[in-house]
């Protein structure tokens, strides 16, 4: 966890969201997106702050926190920040590194272009969003 991976392409290849990409496409993604490291307890996403990004977790664990209450935990392969970016609204919760965290970051302004140029990633993201919605619906009925 301490050292950045030698080949981020290999890491990406093992994540569900990128499972349909060819090797050159994976390299393009790895080459064009920034990797970020967050120390334990560091805030990644801040409630109410504009101009945020879309994050894909490469390693580690993040906590979803709203009004001081922990709502859930995110781990390797999970992603967050997309709702805020897609709707153009500030996040409604904080995301905090529960353990040292490595993420790949797509700046909000580039997410639309990124998803349009990688339709298979977009489809995987859509499936994951549908799954989240189904879970919420199931819990509330």
């Amino acid at each position, binding site marked *: 966890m*301490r050292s950045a991976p030698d080949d981020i392409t290999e890491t990406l290849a093992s994540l569900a969201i990128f499972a349909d990409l060819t*090797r*050159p*496409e994976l390299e*393009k993604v790895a080459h064009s997106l920034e990797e970020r490291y967050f*120390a334990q307890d560091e805030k990644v996403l801040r409630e*109410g*702050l504009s101009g945020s990004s879309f994050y894909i977790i490469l390693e580690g664990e993040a906590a979803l926190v709203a009004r001081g209450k922990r709502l859930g935990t995110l781990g390797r392969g999970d992603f967050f920040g997309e709702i805020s970016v897609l709707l153009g609204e500030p996040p409604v919760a904080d995301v905090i590194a529960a353990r040292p965290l490595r993420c790949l970051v797509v700046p909000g302004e*580039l997410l639309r272009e990124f998803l349009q140029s990688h339709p298979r990633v977009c489809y995987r993201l859509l499936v994951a969003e549908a799954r989240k919605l189904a879970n919420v619906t199931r819990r509330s009925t």
Partner: protein
Amino acid sequence: MKHAVISADEGAGGMFRRWPFFQRLLSWTKPYAPFEQGTREYERYDWNSLLPDEIECRALMCSVMDGTSYYPSRLEMERNLATFADRAGIAVRYGCRWTGTRHDGDRWTLETSDGEFRCQVPIFAVGVAEPWRPQIPGIEEALHYAETRPAETYAGHRVFIIGKENSGFELATGFLQWARQIVLASPSPAKLSINTRSLVGVRARYVQPYEDHVLAGGVIVLDASIERVERTGSTSLVRTRKADSAAELVFEVDDVIAATGFTSPILDLPKLGVATVGRNKLPAQTPFWESASVPGLYFGGTIHQASPGLRKHGIPSNSGGVNGHRYNGRILARQVARKHFGIDPERPVVPRAEVVSYLLHEFTNAPELWHQKSYLARVLIRDEKRGIVDDGIVPLQRFLDSGPADAVGATLEENPAGDIYPVLYTRRGGVSAEHDLPPHPLHDFRTRDHERAVVEALEGLLV
């Protein structure tokens, strides 16, 4: 604070003793600007001078430039730094190479070519100038940017450059009149700084090869992964695969150059637990440039680019350049003094009646805010005993995540449309709020509208 500076170099000047390859910088210094040389406001127009307290050491870059360009030559930049070190009387032990590190209790021991040095707080400002190559089979056959020969030796050659960032385009610019063919290739598309509106991307000075490419003049700019470099007698084969179609393209060329960037020579620090990040494995840092995984160990200079801050709207800091990290350095010195040596520099009181005009002046003229947008902020704190205290310029991220004191952080930001505008972050009773102020076509925020907006944001807090 008692301190010592050691350097492996033979004199002041750092990486500018060798680079950039074609001998001229990408960071400007405008001799003629709206403010007088040596004033704080002038720093916005001078990206290359360091920041002394002594008047005679300010804006030194201007004094050593010959006027042929507002981009200093490599030699002028080297002279700027050497003159600063000399006039400011900075004591440096040159020719002393750091070779290893130990952490013994509350002390650090630096092993060097001149013996051991012990200290309470080490700050590693070792630059990002060690050639770095990605893991591509056969890439060892390619020269690195740092090993490039004089441009005329490429006359009539077919040159393949791996990498489409500034160093790749710098070489291509220098080869235009010499090389028979130039190919620049990497997996992702080239970014241009005028599009990213930041220092990320190829700077305007090096865009000529890109224009040659789009006008089909002979330069090829290719989005492809490099699969292998093979030496075949006097030529090389570079096997690539296009990023969009996965089609293979093979180039037979005379020279292959890896313009793949640089890393930081952090030696044994990863073994001590220093986490690294990104393709070129720079040390991950906190907002105060402390190792994110080893407390008490700090970094200085261009390595600060691995402490990215908030990157609001995707805009990066300028910490990879002198114009950015020179402000970080000042803050770092204060932070180390406060945290490790119990020295708390005096913080002045701002009269309540002057808060609004002070902030509007800072928005309009503060060089720290202009060079480090959405990264550094002017912070005012409400102190029950003293009144409104100026906490100085601090990392914005640190301000947002720090204690519950009622306060305001003032910064400049830029949105995707390219508007530059002031932002106030207020904190009342531990609750933070963001207040975006309108942009101004001349970036002069001392208007009635801005005054009203500041008063509205600070009502009941500081005014």
